[in-house]
């Protein structure tokens, strides 16, 4: 499909690059020992370093470096054995030092990529760099009519800024990239990916051009806090730029905010000052040198990532690429699926997870981590199908009952007497009764009306309360009718 936007003067191509800020999972901050948990009392997780007190010095947290290295390897990038921390200078009350410690010319990770798929088409998206930096504190403008409050709990928390190449050409691609990146971060356990709590934030650089022409002037849309909003913001912004250019205007390079209430982007206030951040190497920190053996040890400890896992599901479990993709997207889903599939029919497990379970979770609006039916319980249900205790059809009823009551599949089957009838005598009796009551149809069947077979099955099943083993019933019926 074409990603082009139709304008009055012809078709336009959208060019998108994403800058993702991912909060590093770590007990302590990037340069201080203060804690990092979300939702603590304001200013309760602040060390003198984070508050920019006189004479305080930053010391790099090894754990955060390890997380950045792991992420770098996870996005197929080069981990640089030498990187440098720089000061990015600007004044703001939630930036206590008056500068942010970041990496400018020499990031810890550079030159990676990840693969996305949009409507069946695969595409490789380049990743320019990943660097480590400190987060700022939070300004609270809504606590007082005229004053701003500052909470420094977030000040100094480690962020990875992950910058893509301008390789994305539609909001769908941008959304797919963001979802894929989030999935990888969560598999790696280097970022929890929680966009509502702000531990994953996305800025989108958007420009438009006529196909084949050089890049247009871009606008940066800041801090969009869900995948859906990123897509909406991009589409709005691209349209705005096309209309502006077609009306004879020029796109100004600027920073814009996405207003999710109105679905529009608008210029950020006070943008009349162009910032000169005056980056220079932070003299308080030595260049960060990494031992190749350390990088190798991180590589050895890498978990299986979504792409590899998807391949395994297709090749080893025989799942369809679609089902495999759905199952690996979220780490928790994959873990659930693997627990159900272990020692069982993987395809059947996949069908149950993507079918019944997803349907139920959707209705309940619950994440898989909070599923009312655990992977072990679902596995037990599948075991009851496998050993012919119940049929697949009855199993669906049992599953619904499990959702309601939280009881185990076995308990429900016993309590409701759903155990499948495998006693051939009982089934024969039922079949005989059905055939006796429908002599005319038996005659029709024998004269060639094969379709009536289903009718007999249905009647016999009904007579057994749906509990007859379907295979056995078919066998007996066929024998009697031949």
């Amino acid at each position, binding site marked *: 499909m074409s990603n082009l936007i139709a304008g009055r003067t012809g078709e336009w191509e959208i060019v998108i690059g994403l800058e993702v800020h991912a909060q590093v999972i770590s007990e302590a901050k990037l340069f201080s020992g203060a804690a990092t948990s979300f939702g603590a009392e304001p200013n309760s997780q602040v060390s*003198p370093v984070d508050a920019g*007190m006189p*004479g305080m*010095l930053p010391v790099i947290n090894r754990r955060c470096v390890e997380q950045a290295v792991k992420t770098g390897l996870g996005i197929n990038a080069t981990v640089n054995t030498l990187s440098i921390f720089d000061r990015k200078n600007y004044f703001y009350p939630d930036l206590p030092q008056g*500068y942010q410690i970041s990496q400018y010319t020499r990031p810890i990770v550079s030159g990676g990529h990840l693969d996305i798929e949009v409507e069946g088409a695969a595409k490789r998206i380049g990743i320019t760099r990943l660097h480590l930096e400190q987060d700022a504190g939070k300004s609270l403008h809504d606590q007082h009519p005229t004053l701003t409050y500052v909470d420094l709990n977030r000040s100094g928390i480690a962020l990875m800024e992950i910058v893509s190449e301008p390789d994305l050409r539609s909001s769908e691609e941008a959304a797919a990239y963001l979802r894929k990146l989030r999935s990888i971060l969560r598999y790696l356990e280097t970022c929890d990916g929680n966009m509502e709590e702000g531990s994953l934030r996305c800025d989108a650089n958007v420009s438009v051009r006529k196909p084949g022409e050089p890049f247009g002037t871009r606008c940066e849309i800041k801090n969009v806090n869900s995948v859906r909003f990123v897509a909406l913001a991009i589409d709005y912004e691209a349209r705005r730029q096309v209309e502006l250019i077609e009306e004879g205007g020029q796109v100004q390079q600027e920073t814009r905010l996405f207003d999710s209430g109105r679905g529009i982007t608008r210029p950020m206030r006070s943008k009349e000052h162009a910032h000169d951040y*005056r980056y*220079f190497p*932070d003299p308080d920190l*030595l260049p960060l040198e990494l031992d190749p053996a350390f990088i190798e040890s991180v590589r050895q400890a890498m978990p299986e990532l979504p792409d590899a896992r998807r391949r395994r599901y297709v090749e080893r479990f025989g799942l369809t690429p679609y089902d495999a993709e759905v199952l690996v997207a979220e780490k928790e889903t994959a873990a659930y699926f693997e627990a159900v599939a272990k020692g069982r029919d993987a395809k059947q497990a996949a069908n149950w997870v993507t079918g019944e379970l997803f349907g139920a979770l959707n209705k309940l609006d619950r994440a898989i981590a909070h599923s009312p039916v655990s992977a072990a319980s679902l596995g037990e249900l599948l075991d009851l199908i496998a050993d012919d205790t119940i049929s697949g059809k009855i199993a669906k009823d049992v599953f619904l009952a499990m959702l309601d009551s939280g009881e185990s599949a076995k308990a429900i089957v016993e309590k409701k007497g759903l155990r499948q009838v495998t006693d051939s005598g009982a089934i024969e009796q039922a079949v005989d009764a059905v055939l006796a009551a429908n002599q005319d149809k038996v005659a029709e069947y024998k004269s060639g009306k094969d379709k009536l077979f289903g009718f007999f099955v249905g009647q016999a099943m009904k007579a057994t309360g749906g509990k007859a083993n379907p295979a056995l019933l078919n066998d007996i019926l066929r024998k009697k009718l031949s």
Partner: protein
Amino acid sequence: MTALTDLTLAEARDQLRAKQISAVELADAHIRAVERIRPLNAFITETLDLARERAKLADKRLAEGKAGALEGIPLAIKDLFCTEGVLTTAASHILKGFHPPYESTVTANLKRAGAVMLGKTNLDEFAMGSSNMTSHYGPVESPWRRQGDNRPLVPGGSSGGSAAAVAARACLAATGTDTGGSIRQPAAFCGIVGLKPTYGRCSRWGIVAFASSLDQAGPMTRSVKDAAIMLGAMAGHDPKDSTSAEEPVPDFAASLIGDIRGLRIGVPQEYRLEGTNPEVLALWDQGIEWAKEAGAEVVDVSLPHTKYALATYYIVAPAEASANLARYDGVRFGLRVPGKSLEEMYELTRAEGFGAEVKRRVLIGTYVLSAGYYDAYYLKAQKVRALIARDFDQAFQKVDLLLTPTAPTPSFAVGEKMDDPIAMYLNDVFTVPASLAGLPAISIPAGLARDGLPLGLQLIGRAFDESTVLRAAGVLETLAHFTEQPDLAGRLAETRA
């Protein structure tokens, strides 16, 4: 018997251990001295009650045989070191009322060694200056005067309060910090010993930062041996400072063997600057003679990039300072001047909080880091800095030490040079190169100019080779036999008893 305030640190330490004197009487003598020299304005904050308490504790530890290396030694602390619960100002109005909730590593080390803090000494604001005239708390007056001239003189800077207090016998020793000469130049002006250790030797944690890649704490004392003892107590690796070196701390005092036979001492030809005071040059020649006399081999060496050192320093140091001083914004501590908007609050606070010299350097630093100027200034300066360091590396392949004057002139009058920042910056011309290269350097008092003012000689050593620097300084100290003291008659405050 020598007055308690005339003892060297080493003598006082020995007498305390021998129970010939008590820490309390030693502290009391110095407390009275601190009170007497108040007219010099050497202290911003006196902590005399605290000193008495600490001295009592020291006597107890001495009695119990648990004495630390500096047990009971009264010290003055430059007011750039954060001291827990004690006002810390950096001599700036912007730190008004700032009582740190933490103790700097160096002062914590000294405290643990048993030192008794008498107070926090005056300095140039944020350690920016060579005269102590930029302090918000007013200039420090040198204990020295020219013969037949009553005009007050500067003690040098930025550690001018520390230098004045040591020279005036108000403390046995003091801490200083040196970024481009701030220990060595005031030591030379006040006729005392000042040692800037190798960058990384002493932790910078808890020292109000001026230029992070240059700042280094060191001792200011009345003898080379005292400097050796005190450095041992100050130094050591600190995991809280990433630039602190993981080097063992040797017994510096043990290196004072009084023998420099066979040591090669280099004389950098580029330091023979035109316009240098002829008496300074004469003393330098005298120093060379002493070295030869003591059996050292003196050779000429070349440090070809010396002439760029001052310009390089005045780009690198302000650049770092402009970022280091950004945290003084009125938001969290110190001075806040309210404004109608955030920006106005920033502007009014920093306009009122910083003095002219600090503003000048913040502006220079901001400028040299700006887009369009970064490459021409900051980046170029970094390259030249590397060349200057290489000059020293090459020289130290031929020699073990370098001998130079400490400052191009003796002390000058309060108020002089204030209208000419460049003339003021020239004070640092001999001290700045070693700072840029991060090398250890000491200034020892070596003689008097004709007008009766002290002059210093500087010895520069290899990185982390303070031992050799101290060894040679000890020998020159003996040969120079500098025993003159400033005459404070008529300038002291009245005290009880």
